[in-house]
C-alpha cells in the first residue's frame, strides 16, 4: 500500500474470512425449515387443540363457527394485505385502519345520501383510499418524512374527520342490499367475502413474488441506496406502494360496511391497524422467513383469528383476545427482528 487516505481499517483487519462452512450450512438449512413451517404448524395445533378440548370441541369445529371466524377476520386480512406493500419496501403505513374507517363512511354516504349505484360507490371508496395513500406516499417518498410519523398523523386526522362528518351517528339506512347480502352469502360453504380476500391475496402474492415490480419493492426495502444504484426510482416505488395500500384499505372499508350492514364511526381505527401489522410481522417469520410475504400474513391472520375464537368459546373473558393479539404482535416483531438480524449476518 502506498498512499494516502485515512486509514479506515487497522492493518491487521483487512481480510474477512467467514467462508461458508458446510456443516453449519446444513444445520442452518434445517433450522431454516423449522422456522419456515412454524406458523402453519402452530395454526394446525390451535385447530386440533380447540376441536379436541372438551370445553370448545362441540362448537369450534362447526361449520357455522368456521364461517363466522373467516368472515370476522376478512376485514383484518384485507388491512394486513394493505399494510404489507409499504412494509415490503421498508416503510410503515399506520393509517390503513383509519383509512378503512373513513372509506366505509365514503361508500355508505355515497349510497345513502347521494344515491350513487353500488359499483360506483365502491369505486369511489377505493379511489378515496388511494388518494389518502397518495398523500402519505408523497410526504414519505418525495419530502422524505419518516413514514411512521406521517401515517400516524394521517390516521389521527381521518378519525377526526369521520367523527365530525357523522356527528358520531351510524349510517344505517340506504345501504345497498346486495352489499349486505354479499357480506352474508356463502359459496361452497365459505363466505363470499373470504373468497374475495383470497382472490386479493392471490393477486398480491403474484405482484410481490412474481413480477419485477415486487422484486423492486423488495430491493428498496432491503437497501434503498443500493436500489438507487441499480437504476430503480426509489421514490416512485415507495409512492406506488402507499397508493396501493390506500386502495386496499378503501376496499377494506367497503368490506366493513358489508360485514356490519352499516357504517359506524367507531369501526375502523388504529386498533385494527395494530392487528393488521401484527399479522404482517408474524407472517414475516414464516414461509419466507425474514421477508414480508402474503402466504405467511394470511396464515398469521387466521392463526390469531382461530386462537381468539377458541378462547372466546372456552369462555375466557374478552380482554384475553386483546392481550393475545398484542402479545402476538410483540412476539412477531421480536422474532422477525432476530431472524432479520441473523440473515443480515450480524447476530
Amino acid at each position, binding site marked *: *500500500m*502506498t*498512499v*494516502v*487516505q*485515512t*486509514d*479506515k*481499517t*487497522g*492493518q*491487521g483487519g*483487512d*481480510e*474477512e*474470512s*467467514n*467462508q*461458508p462452512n*458446510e456443516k453449519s*450450512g446444513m444445520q*442452518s438449512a434445517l433450522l431454516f425449515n423449522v422456522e419456515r413451517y412454524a406458523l402453519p404448524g402452530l395454526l394446525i395445533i390451535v385447530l386440533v387443540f380447540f376441536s379436541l378440548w372438551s370445553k370448545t370441541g362441540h362448537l369450534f369445529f362447526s361449520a357455522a363457527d368456521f364461517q363466522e371466524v373467516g368472515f370476522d377476520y376478512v376485514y383484518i386480512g384485507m388491512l394486513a394485505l394493505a399494510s404489507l406493500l409499504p412494509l415490503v419496501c421498508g416503510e410503515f403505513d399506520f393509517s390503513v385502519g383509519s383509512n378503512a374507517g373513513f372509506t366505509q363512511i365514503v361508500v355508505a354516504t355515497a349510497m345513502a345520501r347521494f344515491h350513487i349505484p353500488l359499483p360506483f360507490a365502491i369505486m369511489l371508496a377505493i379511489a378515496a383510499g388511494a388518494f389518502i395513500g397518495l398523500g402519505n406516499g408523497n410526504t414519505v417518498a418525495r419530502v422524505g418524512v419518516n413514514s411512521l410519523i406521517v401515517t400516524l398523523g394521517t390516521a389521527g386526522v381521518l378519525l377526526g374527520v369521520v367523527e365530525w362528518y357523522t356527528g358520531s351517528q351510524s349510517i344505517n339506512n340506504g345501504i345497498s342490499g346486495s352489499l349486505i347480502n354479499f357480506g352474508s352469502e356463502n359459496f361452497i360453504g365459505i363466505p363470499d367475502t373470504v373468497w374475495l380476500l383470497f382472490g386479493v391475496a392471490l393477486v398480491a402474492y403474484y405482484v410481490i*413474488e*412474481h*413480477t*419485477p415490480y*415486487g*422484486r*423492486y419493492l*423488495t*430491493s428498496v*426495502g*432491503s*437497501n434503498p*441506496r*443500493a*436500489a*438507487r*444504484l*441499480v*437504476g*430503480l*426510482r426509489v421514490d416512485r416505488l415507495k409512492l406506488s406502494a402507499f397508493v396501493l395500500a390506500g386502495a386496499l384499505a378503501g376496499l377494506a372499508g367497503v368490506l366493513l360496511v358489508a360485514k356490519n350492514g352499516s357504517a359506524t364511526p367507531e369501526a375502523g381505527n388504529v386498533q385494527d391497524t395494530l392487528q393488521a401489522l401484527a399479522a404482517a410481522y408474524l407472517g414475516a417469520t414464516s414461509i419466507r422467513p*425474514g*421477508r414480508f410475504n402474503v402466504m405467511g400474513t394470511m396464515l398469521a391472520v387466521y392463526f390469531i383469528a382461530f386462537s381468539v375464537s377458541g378462547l372466546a368459546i372456552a369462555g375466557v373473558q374478552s380482554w384475553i383476545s386483546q392481550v393475545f393479539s398484542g402479545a402476538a404482535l410483540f412476539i412477531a416483531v421480536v422474532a422477525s427482528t432476530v431472524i*432479520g438480524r441473523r*440473515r*443480515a*449476518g*450480524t447476530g
Partner: protein
Amino acid sequence: MASDSTDEPGVGAGSAGAHTGQSLLGEQLVPRPYFALSVWRVSKNFPGTRALDDVSIDVTGGTIHCLLGANGSGKSSLIKILAGVYQADPGGTVTIGADTIDADRTSPEWARSSGLHFVHQDLAIFNGLSVAENLAIGRGFPVNPVTKAVRWRALRRHARAVLDRFDVDVDPRRLVGQLRPAGRTMVAIARALQDQSDASEGVLILDEPTVSLPAVEVDVLFDALKRYAAAGQTIVYVTHRLDEVTRIADRVTVLRDGCVAATLQRAEITKDRLVELIVGRALDHSAASNATLDGEDLVLEVSDLSGGPLRGVSFGLRRGEVLGVAGLVGSGRTSVLTTLFGLQPPSSGMVKLDGKAVSFANIDDAMDAGFGFVPEDRSESAFVTMSLRENLSAAEVSKYWRGGLLRERAEAADARQSIKDFSIKAISDRQPFATLSGGNQQKTIVARWLRRRPKILLLDEPTQGVDVEARAEIYRLIREAVASGTSVIVVTADLEELARVSDRVVVLADGRITGEIRGPDIDPSQLTELVLSAAPDPHDSKLEASQP
C-alpha cells in the same frame, strides 16, 4: 516560534529533571533534554504485517510536531497505541512529561490521566446541541444540588471562560451545527483541553483534522493552532498533506512502512524532501506526460467536467482500456465516477459516448447507455437480506419478465452460470447474501455489472476490505471483461494496486487533472510522487465555497 530549541522550559518545575539518568532499561546515562512526549523503540506486529518497527519520536514541549506518512505507514497504529486502543509489542516505552510507561501497557485511562488529549477526524461533537452543552458533555453539567436541574447560567459562564481561553469567538448558546467548519473543530479542541489548568500541560493530538475543511477554514484553524503552540501547548498533528506540514510544522516525523524515515527541523522542511522521504527514493521530475489521445479509438470523451469538487476535468477513455484515477482524499476522484454515472449532475462540461454527447438525468439512463458503477462502500450496493441470485440479477430483473411471470428458473440458471464464471464460492444461488465472505460479496457486486456487458465500468475502491486471493480474482475478472471490449475507470487509494492494474493513470488534484502516466510498466513510487506533489496549493481556491 522557534522549534528546535530543545531546552525550552516546557512544563512546570520539577519535571524537567525527570528524564535524566535512570531510564527504565537503565541504558541511558546521558541526561536528555525535556520532551513533552517521547515514544521510544515502539514496535507493533499484527498477524502478517509489521505496522510499527522500532519507532522513536521525541516531541518538544510547546511545538507543533507533524506526523506524516502514506496509507499504511503506521501513523494510525501509533496514534491508537497512544490512545490505548492498541497495545504495542513489549519492549518500548512512552513518556509523557515525567511519567514513563511500557508501550505494551497503554490504556485509555492512562492516556487521559497523563494528559493526552485526542481530537479525531470525526470530531464527535453534537451539531444539534449548543456550544456550551457540547463543552459539558462527557465532563458533566453543573447542577443544582437539590433538584439536579442544570444550572444554565453557570454552564454558560464556564463555556464563556473556556472559549475566551481558546480565542474562539462564538456565543456559547449557538448551536454547534451553525458554526463555520473550523469553529466546530476549535470547539472540539477546546472541549478536549478545557480541564488543563495550564497550556503547557499535556499534549493535544490532532488526527487529520482538516480532511473535510475548505481551504479558508484551514487557515482559520492553523492560526489558532499556532497561537496555542505559542502559548506553550504541545501539539502532535497527524496528516498526509504536505502543504500543511510546510505551513505549520515546527518539526515533522515522516513514517514509511512502519519505520521512522526521518525527523526534520523547521528549516529543513521542503515539499520535495518530504516526498522523497515518503516515497523512499530520490525525486525524478521527468515523470508527468500530458499527451492527448486525439485520433485514437475513444469510447468516452470527457471535456471540462465541473460540479461538486470537480473543476474542469478532461480525459479520454479508449475501448478496452483500464484507466486509473489517482488522487488524495478530497481531490474529487470519487466524484468523477458518480458524475459520469448520473448520481450527481455536472454544473458544466461535456461527456461524449462513442462520439455522441450524452447527459444522464437518471441512473437508469446511464445504465441503458452502457455504464456500470461499483461504489466504494459495499453497504451501498449489497442487498444483504436477499439471496445471492437476487443480488446477481438486481441490475437486470426485467430481463426475466416474460409472459406475465418472473422466470425464476431462467434467473437461477443464469445465477449458477455467473457463480461459475466469476468463481464465487457459495453453496447455492439461493444462499442469503449476508452469509457470503467479504471477497465473494464483492465479486458478486462486480459480477452484477459485468453480466450486463457494460461499455464502461466505473469502479471505486473495488478491492476494499477484500482478501488477497479475492483481490487477484476481481482483477482477473476485470481483465477478462476488458479483453471482450469493456472499458474500465478505476479509483483506488492503493497506488501500487492502481499502477499494477491500469493501462494508464491520470492524477487528480483539487478537482483538476494534473498529470498522467502511461503503461506498460507504471512505477508506483513515481505515481506516489506525482500524487503528493500535485497536492493543492491551499491559496489557489477561488472557486471553493467558503461558508461563513
